[in-house]
């Protein structure tokens, strides 16, 4: 099929990428230090035009500001800072007043005489807790109207901190579940479902390294320590070409760099766990770090009670911990290096061991070539692993199992601010996937070990992209680009080839072929065009349209309602086709009352190919013939999302409403007809509000109403060998819905310090989760009544079946 040249293309690409990098690197590391305002190296000036560029930071702690608007006063000529706080603005020769606007910060301006390209770093001062209502700025808070971004939500960690949270612990993922288009199976389910996508279709990035299992304690908390998080952005549609690898969303979480001016300590003592984060400069304004850790302590508190109840439980383990750290070194005005990492584990054990966790490490280098060309070079490593072991006391009999998914990646990204009308981004990425689905062994009573391990699988994903954000007309901006991704499923290992059979039957094995290390087994490529338009109607409103195609080469293998920590990923193989999604979205954005209210109405349609499903009674774990049990089908999702956000004043928060439909079509399932996906929710209403009463008290509330998820209910009882087997004679999947979900949470925060932006801060948060004690169904299942083998009954299973109050003490100094 002519695809055999692809490995060479990839090789070429990689070589080029390397040459590219070497070329850039050789010229620029440790170039001479520049002072705050300097003449920039040659970026060819356009006739009579010069460029001002630099970094925008917080004046208090030196943290870079992502997405700050930099503009020429009184005009529409503007730009915004990128993920590293860098901006570049090209203006005609002459005197200009440049303003910087960033929500929650005082407007900052400076005057500049442009006779050459100059570099100008700026710092902005944060407004206090209650100052936002006092100063009503009128300019440039309409970023949501002007920017290309659509189907995108940015969360302010300070806003998240005000909201009521489960067991008093604020959580990034839990807050994201309140956004339009985002659902979850319910409490205890890990991950998020975005616009009808499965949980594995979200690229969750922590400082650019993907996190494969973002939850602690089976989904009750996420792995992101809020004390170390700086910026959270969820992109559901109109996904720019610099992102790829997952089809439904990008959750881009950026860690703080660490206060580079003063020592800062944040922490909290809560019901479930405690947190501590320390950040400080090592060299003021140049080199800083942050270290943040959390550990749960139910086990420590419960140990004496457990030991008393049963000595065997003395050694029971159940806890989680995580550590997040980052070092940031601004070598000079042109070079900054970041090293960040995360390590966390959940540990359970009582006569057996079960633990799992993620580790990530990211090394980044920002380089400013000249006032128009910016590079970020990232190398990352990520590893998700779990271990499970059972042992029979007094014998040598035991079972041990370990599984990993490891990625190594290298990716340079460039932004070229060509002129005031064109901003070009390009880059390449290579990811090496190392799947170790199961290293397992059984030891018998004679100490004989049988290895039942599965072979490791390897894959290489490489891609390049080029896109341009172009101002076509004063009111019309377009961003267009292409990402082209390639995937090589590579040896060493065995590839299994199956014969076709009836749909929903195990495919019979035809033959097996051994492949040598690094030998190509199968290649795929997906050309992923991306385009979006923003037409600004007036300063208060705009219309945005986007289309994107996304390719995904790895999928989670799981047929359980909530994903378990034991689930493994499969790469695209000779049997598994890559997942491809096409999405179109249309949105109307409008702000009211001097940008006090931001509203948007979006509609989307998404079509997905090659989604995984499973034959009946599939055996997904430690099964080397797994691929013979996989099915692939189509998915379609569409919906409308209304979002009303109040960003200023004493009362802040949002209301989001989503109407949506998500369906699947898989040959062999549900009579070969479309059926609702398990996370289809017709109506979703999320309200989250915080009210600053005065300097002392903040009140907050969440209210959630979600339509019940679809479920397959039986309509017949079949009795074999005394077992009452539920049976659905219509053979349709998800033919019923469980009851809707609704919940109210409240919280009160008491601030011990009157001065809202003082250095020392402490507060006490009383939160109540599930205030009116709703027993929301996670699922409804069917069983034979205990003690009466002829009677069958339906049972509602609720993960949280009561009110959960919690008290948390937070401090900062």
């Amino acid at each position, binding site marked *: 099929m002519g695809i055999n040249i692809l490995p060479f293309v990839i090789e070429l690409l990689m070589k080029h990428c390397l040459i590219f990098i070497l070329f850039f690197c050789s010229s620029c590391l440790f170039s001479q230090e520049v002072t705050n305002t300097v003449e920039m190296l040659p970026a060819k000036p356009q006739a009579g035009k010069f460029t001002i560029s630099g970094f925008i930071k917080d004046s208090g702690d030196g943290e870079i500001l992502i997405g700050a608007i930099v503009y020429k006063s009184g005009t529409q000529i503007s730009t915004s800072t990128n993920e590293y706080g860098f901006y570049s603005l090209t203006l005609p020769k002459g005197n200009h007043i440049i303003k910087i606007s960033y929500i929650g910060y005082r407007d900052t301006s400076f005057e500049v005489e442009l006779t050459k390209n100059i570099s100008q770093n700026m710092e902005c001062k944060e407004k206090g807790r209650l100052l936002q209502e006092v100063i009503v700025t009128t300019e440039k808070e309409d970023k949501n109207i002007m920017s290309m971004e659509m189907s995108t939500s940015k969360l302010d960690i300070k806003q998240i901190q005000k909201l009521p949270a489960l067991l008093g612990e604020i959580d990034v993922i839990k807050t994201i579940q309140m956004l339009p288009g985002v659902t979850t199976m319910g409490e*205890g389910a890990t991950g998020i479902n975005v616009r009808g996508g499965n949980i594995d279709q979200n690229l969750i990035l922590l400082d650019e390294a993907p996190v494969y299992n973002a939850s602690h*304690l089976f989904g009750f908390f996420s792995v992101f320590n809020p004390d170390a998080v700086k910026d959270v952005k969820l992109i559901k549609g109109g996904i720019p070409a610099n992102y790829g690898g997952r089809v439904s969303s990008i959750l881009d979480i950026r860690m703080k760099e660490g206060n580079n001016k003063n020592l800062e300590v944040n922490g909290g003592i809560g019901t479930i766990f405690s947190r501590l984060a320390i950040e400080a400069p090592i060299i003021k304004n140049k080199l800083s770090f942050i270290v943040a850790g959390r550990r749960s302590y139910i086990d420590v508190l419960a140990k004496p009670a457990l030991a008393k109840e049963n000595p065997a439980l003395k050694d029971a383990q159940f806890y989680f911990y995580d550590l997040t750290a980052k070092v940031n070194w601004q070598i000079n005005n042109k070079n900054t290096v970041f090293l960040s990492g995360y390590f966390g584990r959940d540990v359970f054990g009582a006569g057996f061991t079960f633990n799992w966790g993620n580790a990530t490490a990211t090394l980044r280098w920002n380089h400013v070539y000249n006032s128009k060309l910016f590079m970020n070079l990232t190398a990352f490593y990520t590893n998700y692993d779990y271990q499970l072991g*059972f042992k*029979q006391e007094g014998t040598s009999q035991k079972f041990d199992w370990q599984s990993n998914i490891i990625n190594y990646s290298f990716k340079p990204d460039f932004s070229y601010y060509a002129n005031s009308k064109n901003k070009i981004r390009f880059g390449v990425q290579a990811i090496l996937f190392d799947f170790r689905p199961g290293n397992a062994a059984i030891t018998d009573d004679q100490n004989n070990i049988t290895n039942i391990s599965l072979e490791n699988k390897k894959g290489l994903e490489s891609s390049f992209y080029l896109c341009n954000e172009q101002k076509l007309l004063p009111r019309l901006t377009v961003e267009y680009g292409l990402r082209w991704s390639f995937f090589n499923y590579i040896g060493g290992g065995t590839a299994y080839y199956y014969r076709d059979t009836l749909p929903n039957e195990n495919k019979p094995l035809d033959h097996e072929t051994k492949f040598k290390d690094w030998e190509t087994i199968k290649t795929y490529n997906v050309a992923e065009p991306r385009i979006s338009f923003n037409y600004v109607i007036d300063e208060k409103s705009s219309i945005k349209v986007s289309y994107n195609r996304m390719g995904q080469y790895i999928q989670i293998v799981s047929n359980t309602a909530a994903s378990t920590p034991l689930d493994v990923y499969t790469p695209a193989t000779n049997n598994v086709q890559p997942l491809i999604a096409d999405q179109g979205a249309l949105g109307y954005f409008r702000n009211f009352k001097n940008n006090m209210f931001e509203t948007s109405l979006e509609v989307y349609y998404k079509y997905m190919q090659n989604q995984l499903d499973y034959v009946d009674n599939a055996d997904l774990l430690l099964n080397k013939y797994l691929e013979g049990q996989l099915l692939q089908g189509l998915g379609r999702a569409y919906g409308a999302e209304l979002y009303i956000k109040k960003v200023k004043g004493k009362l802040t928060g949002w209301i989001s409403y989503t109407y949506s439909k998500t369906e699947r079509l898989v040959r062999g399932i549900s009579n070969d007809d479309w059926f609702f996906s398990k996370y289809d929710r017709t109506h979703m209403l999320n309200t989250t509000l915080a009210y600053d009463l005065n300097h002392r008290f903040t009140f907050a509330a969440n209210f959630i109403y979600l339509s019940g998820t679809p479920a*397959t209910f039986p309509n017949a009882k*079949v009795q074999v060998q005394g077992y009452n087997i539920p049976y659905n004679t219509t053979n349709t999947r998800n033919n019923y819905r469980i009851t809707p979900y609704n919940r109210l949470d409240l919280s009160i925060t008491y601030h011990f310090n009157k001065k809202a932006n003082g250095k020392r801060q402490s507060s006490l948060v009383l939160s109540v989760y599930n205030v009116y004690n709703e027993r929301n169904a996670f699922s409804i299942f069917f069983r034979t009544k205990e003690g009466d083998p*002829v009677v069958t009954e339906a049972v509602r299973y609720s993960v949280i079946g*009561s009110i959960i109050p919690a008290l948390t003490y937070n401090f900062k100094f």
Partner: protein
Amino acid sequence: MRKTIKIFFAIIFIRSFSSCEDVIQIKLDEGTKLLVVDAFINDMRTPQRVRLTLSDSYFSGVNPPGVLGANVVLNDLTNSKSFNFTDIGNGDYNYNLNPLDTIAFVNHAYQLEVNYNGFKYTSTATEFRTTPVNDITVNYREATAFTNAGYYCVLWGVDKTGPVSDYYWIKSFKNGVFYGKGSQMNLAIDGAGGSGADGYLFIPPIASRITPRGEVFQSNDICRVEIHSLSLETYNFLDQTRSQTTNSGLFATTPENVKTNIITPNGATTKALGWFNVAAVGFMEKTIP
């Protein structure tokens, strides 16, 4: 093993969060009636039974109605012998054996014929080898946080080695009553719960599960263990039955319909479900001291 993990997850949830289960009333549609053939034949010298029922509405609250007036024949294809089963009038069709005789032999192929409403439903099965129960050991244990005080029986038996995997259904009984809940179903592939244990002594969760979770034996109780041989297809059917009858909680899988090996003839208006297997059985009984 997934089962064990599920149970552990359940314990964590019950203890740390207030997860709960409530019996609720819901209205379900009525499905079409299906002929259910329950034909698990074995080589024990006891009366053999095939049960025919019609599927019932899920919440009927009674045993499904028996099918009367059908005709059930078991053919030993290897020996060219036929056994006619007698309709005893409640859905059961029995073959009353001479207690010194058996109708089932290892490696013989069998065909089941059910004539119902003028249509002949058929199925075939081969009897596979089983392995004997070498011993049942009994230990008294005090109560713990998760278990009751009482006698715990453990099975000692060894899987037969090669050349292909053996599939077993280990049935245990207390005073003649079968531990017959879905959650108590004890299946083995060779000596373990999955492949890779050829020739093994039955490993712990399987060997100890003859005393099901939450159950104990008391003095003078009789513990009986039977090891039934299964075909791979029967193993899969029982495994699917187990998961569909215990499919609950956070990690429930998508419900699916159990398979059948009963062939519905062309033109029959009633579709057949159910299963046919012929098993060799190793067994032992022990009285608790």
